[in-house]
C-alpha cells in the first residue's frame, strides 16, 4: 500500500476550477461558498437539542431556528459542507494522501502543533462570526461579487497574518 502521493494540481488550474465552482454556486443560488456556517449550524443544533428553550430565547441562536423549518442543520451550507467532505475525501483517497497524520513545522512537537491548532480554530470561530463568514464565505465569495466586505475581510485576514507571522515563525519554519 505504500504509495507515493500524486503531486498537487497546478495552483492556477486549481484556482481556475475553484473559480468555476464559485461561479456555478452564484449562478445557481445567488450566493457564494462557505464553510464556517456549517460548523456554526452544528454548534447551534447541539445547543438547541440540549436546551431548546435557552436556544430559542437567545438573541444570537434564535434566528437560526426560524430558518430551515426550525432545523439549523437543514440549510444550504450544511449540505455544501457534506459535499466538501465527500469531494475532499475522494480527491485525497484517489491521490494517495488519505491517512492519519499531523502536518507541522520542523521545530515543534505534535502536542504543541495540536494545541495551537485548537487555539487557531478557536480564533477562527470567533473571527468568522464578526467577519460574517470566513476565508471562503466572506473573503473569497465577497471578492468574486466585488463587495466591499469581501475585500475588507480578505485584507484584514492576510494583513494581520503577515503582521503576526514573524512572532510565530517557530511554529512553521526553521
Amino acid at each position, binding site marked *: 500500500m505504500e504509495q507515493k502521493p500524486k503531486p498537487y494540481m497546478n495552483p492556477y488550474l486549481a*484556482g481556475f476550477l475553484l473559480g468555476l465552482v464559485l461561479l456555478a454556486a*452564484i449562478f445557481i*443560488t445567488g450566493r457564494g461558498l462557505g464553510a464556517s456556517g456549517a460548523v456554526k449550524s452544528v454548534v447551534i443544533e447541539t445547543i438547541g437539542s440540549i436546551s431548546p428553550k435557552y436556544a430559542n430565547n437567545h438573541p444570537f441562536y434564535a434566528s437560526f431556528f426560524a430558518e430551515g423549518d426550525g432545523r439549523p442543520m437543514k440549510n444550504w451550507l450544511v449540505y455544501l459542507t457534506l459535499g466538501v467532505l465527500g469531494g475532499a475525501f475522494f480527491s485525497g483517497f484517489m491521490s494517495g494522501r488519505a491517512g492519519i497524520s499531523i502536518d507541522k513545522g520542523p521545530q515543534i512537537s505534535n502536542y504543541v502543533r495540536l494545541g495551537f491548532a485548537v487555539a487557531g480554530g478557536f480564533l477562527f470561530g470567533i473571527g468568522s462570526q464578526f467577519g*460574517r463568514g470566513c476565508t471562503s464565505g466572506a473573503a473569497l465569495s465577497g471578492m468574486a461579487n466585488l463587495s466591499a466586505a469581501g475585500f475588507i475581510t480578505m485584507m484584514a485576514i492576510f494583513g494581520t497574518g503577515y503582521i503576526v507571522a514573524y512572532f510565530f515563525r517557530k511554529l512553521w519554519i526553521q
Partner: protein
Amino acid sequence: MGPLIPQGFVNPDLNLFFAFVIGLGFGYVLEQAGFSTSRKLAGVFYGYDFVVLRVFFTAAITAALGLLLFSYIGWIDYSMIYINPTFLWSAIVGGAIMGVGFILGGFCPGTSLVAAVIGKVDAMLFIIGMMIGIFVFGQFYDTFEPLYMGSDLGGIFVYDSLGMSRDWFVFFLVVIALAAFIITRKIEDKVNGLKSEAGLFHPSYTAPFALMFGLAILILILPESPKAKWYEANAQSLLEEAAAGKQYIEAEEVTYKLLHQREMDLLLVDVRPEADFLRFNLPGSVNVPLDRILDKSSKKILSGSDNRIVFYSFGSTAADQAWLLTRRSGIKNSYVLKDGLNGLFASVFQYESDSLVNNEMSQFRDRFFVKAGEIFEQGGAIIKTSGKPSPVRTLVDIQPPVAGKGGC
C-alpha cells in the same frame, strides 16, 4: 436566467441537492490544490509556498470576470446576487482575529474540513477549536453585539467605496494579481534557495496570463450593462398586449377568489403608498409601493411567486405602470385589477342586476354579488378568507432578514 433559485427557475427543493454537488467540486479542488496540509497553507506567510495566494486570487478573479461576462451576455441578473453587507469594524476586527487564527492554526475553516476528512489530526482539533469559538461568541453575544451590528454600511461594492468604475477596478485587480503571481514566484524561489528562471515567468504561463489580461481589457471595452437582456420582454409585444388590454383581470374573479380562499391562486400586490395600504387593503395582499417596484426586494417577492400576480391601486393607472415596468424587467404571469379598488367596490356594492337578461347565469351572478356585498360590508372578507384577520403585510416585513447573518 441566473441566479436560478432566487428567480424561481429551479425548484427550491433541489436547492440542497445543488449545494451538495457544488460542495463536491469545492472540496475536490481544495484538496487537489494542496489545501489539505497546514504547512502548505502557512507557507504564504513565510514565503516558502505561495499556493494559497495563487489559488485564491485566480479563483476570485475567475469568478468575478465570469460574473461580469455572464451579466453582460444577460445570463445573470447582477441585482439578484446576494452582496454580503459591510459592517465595517466588525469585518476588520473579525478579519484580524482570523488572521491570527490562520497563523496559529494553519488552517481556515474550509481547508480544515478538507484536511480533517483525509485524516489530518491537526485539522480535526482545529474544527473542535472552531466550535468552541463559535459557542463562546454566542455566550458573549450581548457584549459583542454593538461591534457586531455596528457601522452597517449595507451591501456596498468595493469599487463604489473606492470611487472607481467597476470595470477599471476589475482591470486593476487583474493587473495586481498578475504582478503578485510574478513577484511571489521570485520570492518563493529565493526562500527555497532555487534559481529563478530568467524571464518574468515560465513560458508555459504565457497563454493563461495573457488570457487573464485579455479578459480584463475586454471588460474595460464592453459597456457596463448589456443593451438587451434575454429575460426582458420585448417592447413591441408589450405594447400590443397593453393595447389589447390583455393585462386586465376582472374584479369579479378577484372577488370570487377573495371569498373562496381555497381557490386563491393570486398574489395580490398593492402598489399604493404604504399609508394608503395600512388604512385599507385586500386580505392577503402585499404592499409594494410603485416607487419601489423595481427594488431588489420587490423583485424577489414578485419573481418568487408561483401564483399569478395581480397589481392593484385605487384606479388602474399606478397598477398599469407597475405591470409595464415589471413585465419589461422580466416578471411574467402578472395582471392588473381592472378599474382598481374603486371598480371592485363599485361592482360589489353598487351591483345592479341587468333586468333585461334573466337566465340561470345572470341569477347566479346576482346572488354572488349580493352575497359578496353583504360579506364585504360586515368586513367579512377578512374573516371568511383566512379564518382570522389577515395580517397586514408590508414590504418591510417581507424583506428577508439577511443583513445580520454570516454567509460563510
